[in-house]
């Protein structure tokens, strides 16, 4: 590794830094959501690194979406479980 290209985790941190002005303009509660979204992306940083993209932001947003979808699925399953319990 010549370290010419930043590491996978480095890419996400770099993008997070680039969006610091954007973050500043958000309300406190929204800032927390943004941080959580970037944490989602960090979790998937190896995959972002493997995607070989010039513009990694697309992969970063996809990673955030994956985690959000997982959260939706988890909540749906929870609701279904609760409903089946209340029906019986």
């Amino acid at each position, binding site marked *: 590794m010549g370290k010419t290209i930043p590491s996978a985790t480095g890419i996400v941190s770099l993008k997070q830094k680039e969006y610091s002005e954007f973050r500043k303009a958000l309300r406190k509660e929204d800032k927390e959501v943004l941080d959580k979204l970037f*944490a989602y992306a960090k979790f998937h940083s190896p995959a972002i690194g*493997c995607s*070989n993209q010039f513009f990694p932001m697309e992969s970063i947003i996809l990673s955030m979406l994956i985690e959000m979808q997982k959260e939706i699925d988890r909540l749906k399953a929870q609701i279904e479980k609760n409903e089946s319990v209340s029906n019986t």
Partner: protein
Amino acid sequence: MKVYQILDIYSDQNGINVWLYNEKERIHIKKPYQPFFYFRKNESVKRLLQKKFKNIKIVKDIKIDLIDGEIEVYKVIAKNPLTYNKIISFIKYSDIFTETDFYNIQLSPETLFMFEKKIYPFCKLEKTEKNGRCSFKKIDDLDLLDYEILPLRIMYIDFELEIGKENLRFLRHIPTLTIKFNEDEKSIVIDNDLEYLQELLIKKDPDIIIANYGDDILIPNLFEKGLKFLNRDNLPVIKKEGKSFVSYGQTVYTADMSLLLGRIHIDPKNSFFYKEVGLDGIIELSRISSLGMQAVARTTIGTPITYMEMRNAYENNFLIPYKKNQPEDFKTLEQLIKIDKGGLTLKPLVGLFENVAEYDFFSMYPSIITNYNLSYETINCKHPECEKTLPYTNYRICTKKIGIVPQTLKWLLERRLKYKQLLKKEKNQIYDNRQKALKWLLVVSFGYLGYKNAVFGRIESHEATTSIGRQLITFVKEILEAKGFRVVHILTDSIWVYKHDYTMDDYKKMEEYLNKRINEKFTVVNPDGIPFKILLEGVYDWIVFLPSKSDSVGVSNRYFGKFSNGEFKFRGIDLRRRDVPEFIKNFQLEVFEHLSKGKNKTEFLKLIKDIDEIFNKHKQKLLEGDFSLKDLIIKKKVSKDPNSYQKRTDLSEVAGTLLKEGFNLNPGESVNIIYILDKFVKAMPLEIYLTNPKPINIEKYLKMLEESKIGLLPKKLFGNVLR
């Protein structure tokens, strides 16, 4: 017929000195020697060297360049090592030469002598006498695993300090010395009695001196005070200055070196290998690399590898390039983004798991290098008939000849495997030390491919290695997921997975299946390579993957777990860190001792509830002053020149205090920190604290204890985390 072993080889002005030993005697042989090197045919260089140096002979020769094949060269033969060294420094330090035209000039006369005669330290020789002339014949084989080491006379010099961790450099006196000859003998205490020490040295005539702080304090001091015969022939001790350098983002300091002649001096405080693999490991490395024992003890791990590769090249009649004329190949940005990467990691799922299996590749990178023939000279080689390309990177690879690096690594890999097989049959500490020494070489062998100054390094082979590594581990992940496993974590060559209701036997069977599939899928270039091997490291009763401190995302290589055989594995926690004081490590150890009773997730959760009780016990100890000073020491490394610190930190304060007291610190050196209550500073170096004690900052240490507890059991661990 007498049998000897080589103890030490070095050159002087006229030739080579060899010290041989056996049970009865030590003999010193002086041999005239004419070292030589090569340069690409160039008449003006020839004329210049001939004009400047009288004691040389220059002859035409044909040799093989690793990249260009057969080339015409001039061989320069120096009359003696003195002339040789003079020419070499002239070439290295004058800017009139093209450095890439020169070959073999990095070899010292003694190394060249060993390469030429195919001998090495601890090589066994047989002495024969005919018509009053004696000669020596090699009766040794480098491939031997159970080679004999004739009994050595070892002298240990040590000293007791009140607190085991001080850095002697910062003390103003040399304490009372304790001398021991060979481990089992009684120790002798010497308090400032040089004459007695002299007597002992002459009478016992040790082959090896093992002295803590020998390199920068003891040996130079004893020599200056007039101790004679530190060298066997009573020449002055050779002193080499220490240096600081940056390696993988860390500043490292190697202390001054004091080297002896005819005797071996090892300073455990200045020897990575002595600490890791002891004398057995150093002797093994010395034999296989033709590097003297004193050099091996002080060198970085990559040097023995380089020497092995150079010897391999020499024996295969190749020229050893001094500076490579092989710049990195041109790459587009797209290619660079694709291939300039390390191993694959998947961030761990944070939390507590049970029945997790860990599979590790056996020496993944060395196996790849060997199996795919990845070397400086084999990637995009000049043979038009070599058309095979590597997967992913698409570099062409040589199929005509096996490269120097794969040749060397294959030998190393097989040697280590053989030692491991022997160890399976019977326990043997010597074999274990030797195989560990080889393991270290294998660990760094890959990094050396990408290091621009490494003789046989090349960035393309480095890239090819990591890319094949990523494919291997991805392939394993795909197979396991298809079989219904959940992947918890991947780190380059290791994968953590679990499957409900899987037993140890099931996991073991899966190991067999994985090996079969991997070796079917990855068709290698080198037919004499070594099959890829993935091994079941173990199955964890329970394992905890910890999150990052800033967010809840898992961090690679930060976990603790207990294997089903009762063994623990810790990575990245306080227990493993050098900058964490002993009392915190004791706290964590007690926690793990308690947790060791847990055989699954449920039992773990029950036991972990007692952590507060253990915590309070250690907190109380701190509050009541029930600790010794050595438990509070924090070891930290100075990363730069102590004068250049701009921000005030504990480290800059300690470095500043030491400077004020007249101790010069080098970047990379460690200091021992004690936190104190004081108006002006928050920390003090231990060595100064001893003579000038201040109240201890218990609050600070309590906070550290608290953080250590949270570090093991972060609030987020069992709550809302990425799963």
